[in-house]
């Protein structure tokens, strides 16, 4: 990988192509998780790779995990820029409520793709906050800053997202249990 990065710093076209082929699917999945439409996801991936290749000069490779995390960040930022144009993130007031933390078992018969799709099916604002918090690991204050909302609103969006996902999960489990 160190050699690959070196070649990328020299803007070697062939290396760029191989690097793109290697990582684009995973990054497409990240973008698609946010924007839920193929055209936007495709353009986000390409803008993302452009930024990645342009910023290779200042990038210090340490290991594969850090590389992936750095690239994902670029994709997420680009996805948010697209979402910001399409949706307004408003502050919402709601009494905070706790979801019951009853353990629920996961049924391995549910394909990973179904979980991915459940996230897709969330309304845009809930989906964005859930993606940022639960999948990407940003804090509420970082999310509030990125979306231009209050921290408290971020918490409410997250609660609603979890509730909705919980509800999508249960009927499916009940079905299989029958």
């Amino acid at each position, binding site marked *: 990988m*160190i050699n690959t990065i*070196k070649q990328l710093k020299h*803007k070697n*076209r062939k290396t760029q*192509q191989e690097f*793109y*082929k290697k990582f*684009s*699917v*995973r990054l*497409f*999945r990240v973008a*698609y*998780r946010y924007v839920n439409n*193929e055209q936007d*996801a*495709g353009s986000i*991936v*390409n*803008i993302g*790779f*452009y*930024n990645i290749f*342009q910023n290779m000069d*200042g990038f*210090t*490779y*340490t290991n594969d995990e850090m590389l992936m995390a750095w690239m994902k960040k670029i994709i997420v*930022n*680009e996805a948010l*820029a697209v979402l*910001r*144009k399409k949706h307004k993130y408003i502050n919402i007031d709601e009494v905070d409520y706790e*979801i019951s*933390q009853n*353990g*629920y078992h*996961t049924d391995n018969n*549910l394909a*990973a*793709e179904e*979980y*991915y*799709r*459940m*996230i897709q099916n969330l309304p845009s604002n809930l989906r964005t906050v*859930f993606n940022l*918090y*639960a*999948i990407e690991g940003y804090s509420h204050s970082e999310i509030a*800053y990125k979306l*231009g909302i209050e921290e408290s609103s971020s918490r409410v969006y997250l609660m609603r997202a*979890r509730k909705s*996902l*919980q509800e999508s*999960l249960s009927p499916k489990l009940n079905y299989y249990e029958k």
Partner: protein
Amino acid sequence: MKSNIDNIFRDKISNLSSVPEGTSWTPEKGWNEYKKAHGKRIKPFSKVALFTASAAATVAIIIALSISTNVFSPKVIIATSPADSTKELLLPNGSKVWMNKNSTIAYSIRKSGEFNLKLEGEVYIEITEEPNAPYTIKTGSAVIAVKSATKLNVRAYPNDTDIDITVRDGSVSVSDNILGKGLALLVTKGNYCSVSRANSFVFATVNTNENYLAWKTGKLIFNETPMATVTQILRQYYGKEITITDDSVAYYSYTGTFNNASFDNVLAQIQLDSIIEMSKDGNVVTISKK
């Protein structure tokens, strides 16, 4: 607090490595689009052509600005800094301006107090009072609206791939006027905003570069800074070419401060303090391990 459901979803989707069901995108398609969009890349030897082109562009902007002033527009005042030193100005509305080398500003002040400034290069501005009329700074496609008493640094040399806006105090609103009309990012004290020249992509984050004002203060501060970043900063500050040939040196942490030091003194000091070896060949410095 992460709940069970967060972990469940994150774990389940973490290993998905194929294209999502129901989409027709493929890496091949994506790469073809990418090639189309970024076909010709600039080869190193034509960087000279690029530089002269951007110098010419700067002049063109200034000329265009002067020509575009008509009877109904206020007078535009232009100031430039030389190639070898910075310049300090006090504007009629009380704003204090420091210009880095090779920079240009063109500003106008209306009777209402409305202030417009266009810049190229690097400029640090102190707006001492909250403006009571629109106060706008423009460079490239970036539009900066000053909302309160503010101190900010804007770096926008023609060769920079991004426009960097760092807010030292106060707050500004940044948008890009190509793709992001009407969408502004609020950037406050301690944060910086980057506007990409290539795709007008705007993002803001916490500023971790302690040396963004080194050009003005002459002070360089490195605090457990990885050598890769140190060389980036030295490259920018001294305009010298520095390459790290040994990758293991890239993330070695360096700590040290320099006040108005010469390039050679800085190199000598870093070599004394650390496991790094530097060799100079004409104008190029190479860094490796001792």
